[in-house]
């Protein structure tokens, strides 16, 4: 049987979980210690959001699986995050551009989800919005600093935009799951977020003296469980402890 609330919550949770996991790879490797702490703080925020969302998804599913089961014991094609968030960290510019595109989407998304008729999702959105505002400020300022910085930093952030922009459209992916829940006032109609998203993107790019890539090429598939080649390595590392020592806790 279809369980739209479960699928919807899981999709949001997986975006947070996988981006949090990716960002946590920076721990101990940041360009300077202050930025190392900033990135891992953001990673922790995202994993915290994922925890709340996965706990709620587990309740919605009602099949005895816990949030940890959902996080650590699914197969690759059972994760429904967008392909953007699973992309490799690359250099610092790639990490920041990935984060910035995601934050720019998440900001209006959480603003809208606060008004969901589902009280639990609304509460998670309200709490997460405060964190996301900071994430967006942090990533936007870096885009401006790098774009309007040196020749080298401008080139790197521009290369990162070319690499990642094609994944941005999938953030707005909707299907029957969304349509059903929109009609009940639970889900956000993502099309309504596009003006706010585009406005923020252009506002920052203008200050950064950058432009969006010409290419209109778009990639998607994550919401159906189709992932890019690096995703398998990511979940192998993320799941290692639960796979090697089933049911372990600490």
């Amino acid at each position, binding site marked *: 049987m279809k369980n739209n609330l479960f699928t919807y919550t899981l999709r949001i949770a997986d975006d947070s979980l996988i981006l949090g996991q990716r960002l946590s790879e920076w721990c101990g490797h940041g360009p*300077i210690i*202050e*930025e190392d*702490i*900033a990135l891992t*703080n953001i990673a922790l925020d995202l994993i915290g959001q994922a925890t709340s969302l996965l706990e709620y998804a587990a309740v919605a599913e009602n099949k005895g699986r816990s949030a940890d089961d959902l996080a650590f014991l699914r197969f690759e094609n059972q994760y429904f995050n967008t392909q953007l968030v699973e992309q490799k960290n690359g250099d610092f510019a790639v990490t920041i551009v990935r984060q910035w595109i995601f934050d720019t989407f998440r900001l209006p998304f959480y603003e809208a989800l606060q008004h969901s008729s589902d009280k639990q999702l609304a509460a998670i959105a309200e709490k997460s919005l405060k964190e996301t505002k*900071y994430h967006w*400020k*942090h990533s936007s*300022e870096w885009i401006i*600093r790098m774009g309007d910085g040196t020749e080298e930093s401008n080139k790197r952030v521009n290369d990162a935009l070319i690499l990642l922009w094609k994944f941005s459209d999938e953030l707005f992916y909707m299907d029957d799951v969304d349509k059903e829940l929109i009609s009940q006032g639970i889900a956000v109609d993502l099309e309504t977020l596009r003006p706010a998203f585009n406005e923020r993107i252009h506002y920052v790019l203008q200050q950064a003296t950058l432009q969006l890539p010409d290419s209109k090429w778009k990639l998607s598939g994550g919401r159906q469980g189709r992932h890019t080649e690096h995703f398998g390595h990511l979940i192998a590392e993320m799941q290692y402890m639960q796979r090697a020592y089933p049911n372990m806790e600490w």
Partner: protein
Amino acid sequence: MAGKEWPLWEVFIRSKQGLNHKHVGSIHAADAEMAVENARDVYTRRSEGISIWVVESSQVFASDPADSDALFEPANSKIYRHPTFYEVPDGVGHM
């Protein structure tokens, strides 16, 4: 910027309303905005504060340790400057 290193900033945190900002340490940052964010991430992760000031360390003009005899020692012999010779009336609450 001359060198490769980002400038150093001194960080001051107000822990709650009514208290003063206190020096808590320093961080590196390329500009003032980044300095506030880095200070937030490094020094307020455990709810230590509600307000942050940052000052570029190079803007701080400090007393010379070599002058400390002249600057501070004369105060040691002037105990009458401490308000310890007054009776505090019972009606006065916490001072």
